[in-house]
């Protein structure tokens, strides 16, 4: 090798080393700026409860987060706090910062079927995003602890406490994906009728209503067709009272958003009015064909005819209570639709 070539190689090597050094410094500076961002964005109390790592590109990925379920986690007693909890966690999932959620029930003093069904539907939907959900502590409050243990919701969680065996075989949670499962709903009804009437039997009107709910979720609830169209039915059997509480939930776009999407030109004074009119059959479905969109009318008629009792609906920013015929505007929106109702011996 000539002297000239040797000199050229040395110069290239030095230049490469300088570049590498420059890149290293730039990378270090970037990491430091990211850490500053994390400190600013997340208060120390939160950071201490989550494990954080920096990826190769210096992007902050918080792996695990512990979420505390609010003290009053009950649709019947504090609907706003349930919806705020759901809203906040949906946003956390959308941010994509965490891949593991640990649910902590220790502070819970009040809890009910509706709130638990919404929570489970949220977590089951998270699994599509490959997010793991575990559950850490039972409530310290005796009544709330007893509810969770006896209701049987516990068996649908993973994590250390899921191994705690309970007597709660009361709750059945059924999940549907983009299809209507009328055979499964018939089975749910037979079991419910056994709790209410003492023997397994059909309830055609209730079956019709469940098919309508599933159809609405699959065909209308999701404006974005590429999303997974999931719905959930839960039944909680109160055997000593001959009563079964049903909850149905989908995490779609909600009835009000769906109607607004289609009837953009219509004017309503409020969303409460819009929802009430939807249950009165004011709107046809998005197909614009006659005789369609009767599902909501069937649901309302079933309440009117006493096939079911205590019908409540939450969708977008409205809570509709059919027993008191009241529609309440909510502070926190629920992007989806939730129904709950009861059947007992007084139902026809």
């Amino acid at each position, binding site marked *: 090798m000539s002297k000239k070539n040797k000199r050229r190689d040395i110069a290239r090597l030095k230049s490469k080393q300088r570049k590498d050094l420059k890149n290293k410094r730039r990378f270090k500076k970037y990491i430091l700026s990211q850490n500053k961002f994390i400190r600013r964005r997340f208060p120390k109390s939160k950071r201490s409860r989550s494990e954080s790592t920096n990826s190769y590109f210096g992007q902050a990925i918080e792996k695990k987060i512990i979420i505390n379920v609010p003290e009053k986690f009950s649709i019947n007693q504090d609907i706003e706090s349930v919806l705020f909890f759901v809203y906040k966690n949906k946003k956390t999932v959308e941010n994509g910062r965490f891949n593991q959620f640990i649910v902590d029930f220790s502070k819970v003093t009040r809890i009910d079927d509706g709130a638990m069904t919404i929570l489970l539907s949220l977590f089951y939907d998270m699994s599509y995003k490959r997010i793991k959900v575990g559950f850490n502590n039972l409530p310290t409050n005796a009544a709330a602890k007893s509810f969770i243990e006896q209701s049987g919701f516990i068996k649908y969680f993973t994590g250390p406490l899921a191994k705690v065996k309970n007597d709660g075989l009361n709750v059945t949670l059924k999940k549907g994906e983009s299809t209507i499962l*009328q055979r499964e709903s*018939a089975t749910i009804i037979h079991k419910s009728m056994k709790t209410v009437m003492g023997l397994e039997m059909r309830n*055609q009107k209730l079956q019709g209503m469940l098919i309508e709910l*599933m159809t609405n979720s*699959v065909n209308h609830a999701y404006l974005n067709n590429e999303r997974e169209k999931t719905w959930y039915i839960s039944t909680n059997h109160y055997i000593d009272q001959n009563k079964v509480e049903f909850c149905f939930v989908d995490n779609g776009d909600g009835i009000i958003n769906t109607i607004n999407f289609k009837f953009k030109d219509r004017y309503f004074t409020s969303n409460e009015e819009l929802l009430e009119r939807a249950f009165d059959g004011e709107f046809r479905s998005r197909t614009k064909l006659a005789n369609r969109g*009767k*599902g909501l009318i*069937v649901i309302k008629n079933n309440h009117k005819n006493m096939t079911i009792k205590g019908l409540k609906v939450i969708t977008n920013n409205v809570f509709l209570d059919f027993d008191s015929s009241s529609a309440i505007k909510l502070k926190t929106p629920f992007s989806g639709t939730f129904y709950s109702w009861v059947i007992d011996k007084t139902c026809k």
Partner: protein
Amino acid sequence: MQIATKHFLKISSDFSETPGARYYTDGHDSGQEFYEKILCHAFQEALDDKAVLTIDLDGTEGYATSFLDEAFMRLTKDFGKNEVLSHLKIISTEEPDWISEIDNYIKDVE
């Protein structure tokens, strides 16, 4: 016009005890499936024999509006309102409300 015994259809035994929703895409035992596989042929036979097709709604787990609407709306569109009204009879003791409801579906077809 006399009802011929062979022109009798019981949805629970001839089709499904758990009828579903409107289309094949909605899941099992849809109104579309019931119309295309059973009702359409049974009604054609009844027409050919100048008889009345009797459909018994009893014995199922329950119906969704979309199932009945799809089946009887398609029937009316394909065979005509007058033919359907004169050659079809719906019976039900368990859910008699459906008889008038189906009648409305047929009459609403333009």
